[in-house]
């Protein structure tokens, strides 16, 4: 009974946080609602006894990435008014088409995961400690080794790109002088 209550509460908070994040004018408030949503998701993971994944979600996303987001927002000193009256970047038709497309994808995934026989199979396949340190590490370093290593290459490319951009700006400024 308690578990069900906790589940519905966290699920509600996660979804409400996500919705509130999108409808905010103020970017700082958006970041905060995203953190709220992530915290609720971490609770859901922990309820599935995936403690490790829940902790990682908080450490990596809430503790590191979103701090960077907030840092950038503060550095540029963005307030709500920066996002008003800019005029549409995409046409109205494109917006509606994209919304319908994403919603359709959402419905298909939910249907596939929750309302078919596959859902039961998925639940049966996962071991009780599927979210622990060892099961996650084993999957990462055996079954998903190549995608995992490729991600690190991706990150390296991003780092090199960031360094390049920072350098270019500096030389450009020196030329100005």
């Amino acid at each position, binding site marked *: 009974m308690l578990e069900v209550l906790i589940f519905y509460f966290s699920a509600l908070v996660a979804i409400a946080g996500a919705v509130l994040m999108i409808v905010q004018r103020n970017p700082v408030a958006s970041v905060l609602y995203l953190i709220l949503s992530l915290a609720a998701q971490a609770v859901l993971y922990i309820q599935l006894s995936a*403690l490790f994944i829940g902790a990682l979600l908080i450490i990596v996303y809430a*503790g590191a990435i979103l701090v960077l987001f907030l840092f950038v927002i503060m550095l540029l000193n963005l307030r709500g008014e920066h996002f008003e009256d800019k005029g549409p970047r995409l046409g109205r038709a494109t917006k509606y088409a994209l919304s319908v497309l994403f919603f359709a994808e959402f419905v298909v995934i939910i249907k596939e995961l929750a309302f078919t026989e596959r859902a039961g199979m998925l639940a049966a396949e996962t071991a009780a400690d599927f979210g*622990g340190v060892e099961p996650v590490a084993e999957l990462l370093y055996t079954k998903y080794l190549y995608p995992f290593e490729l991600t690190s290459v991706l990150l390296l490319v991003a780092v090199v790109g960031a360094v390049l951009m920072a350098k270019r700006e500096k030389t450009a400024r020196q030329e100005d002088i």
Partner: protein
Amino acid sequence: MSLTTIAVIAALKVIVFLGAVLTGCAWATWLERKLVGHFQHRMGPSYAGPYGLLQPIADAIKLIFKEDFMPDGAEKIMYTLAPMIAFIPALLSFAVIPFGDEVTIMGQQIDLVISDLNIGILFIFAVTSLGVYGIVLAGWSSGSKYSLLGGIRSSAQMISYEIAYGLSIIGVILVAGTLSMKELVVQQASFFDWFIFRQPVGFVLFVICAIAETNRAPFDLPEAESELVAGYHTEYSSMKFAMFFIGEYANMIAVACIATTIFLGGWQGPLFPPVVWFAIKVFLFMCFYVWLRATLPRFRYDQLMNFGWKALFPLALLNTMVTALLKTIG
């Protein structure tokens, strides 16, 4: 044990531990002022009670009755929320710290840890990484240049040091093969098994990064009073200021507890009961904190960043690699 007994014991543990930690925070301010006073050939607080021991109570009363001021340009909701966001994560990390061995009280086996999670260390890193939001939001919502600069500095500093902070304990985790705080203490039964001897580089890295994470001297750039007035909490007063203040001391005590548990053998020790040993070690670590503050001058900001990224981070990586190599070889 029935369900009610378990619930009652858990609730009692939370109340007792939180009470102990908050009391510790109050008298940690006294300890710091007294010690810094003596380091500088002054007496420190000495009027309120014997040796000024009642000073924290006087301070608390003063803070409660001060005017709770809110600047005109502040973002009202976040200005109020920020001290709470800074304060709560500081207390959460105490949930997984083992204060002592199992004891038997009134026929009940009681484990002196609120919750022995099997990912205890990760839990601590998860909740402490959230503490930065309080500081950042306080800086942003105050509507003051000094606060904003303090907040930005703080976020940059904490992101930079958090990486080395996390890596510094990977060595210990590799050697111990567990993430549970209780299990770590059990593995440090004899003196030379303490992880400070098995992971000396890790310990030094941990202490340096922990001081930066708690924004203490010589890394207290976010509140550098000579340039930023008081940094992120410039505009705060009364109990909102007090929450930042208590939060900072709670963080210090948390770091002292974590260092004690991971590197200094936790509650292990001869003769005295485990809880006493734990308290002694935490106390000595707090004195070390104050000693550093009274001794070292503040870093310059670019020095702080260079030191974090170019010295601590590579050293932490190297330590992890060497430990992993040694572990694999034999």
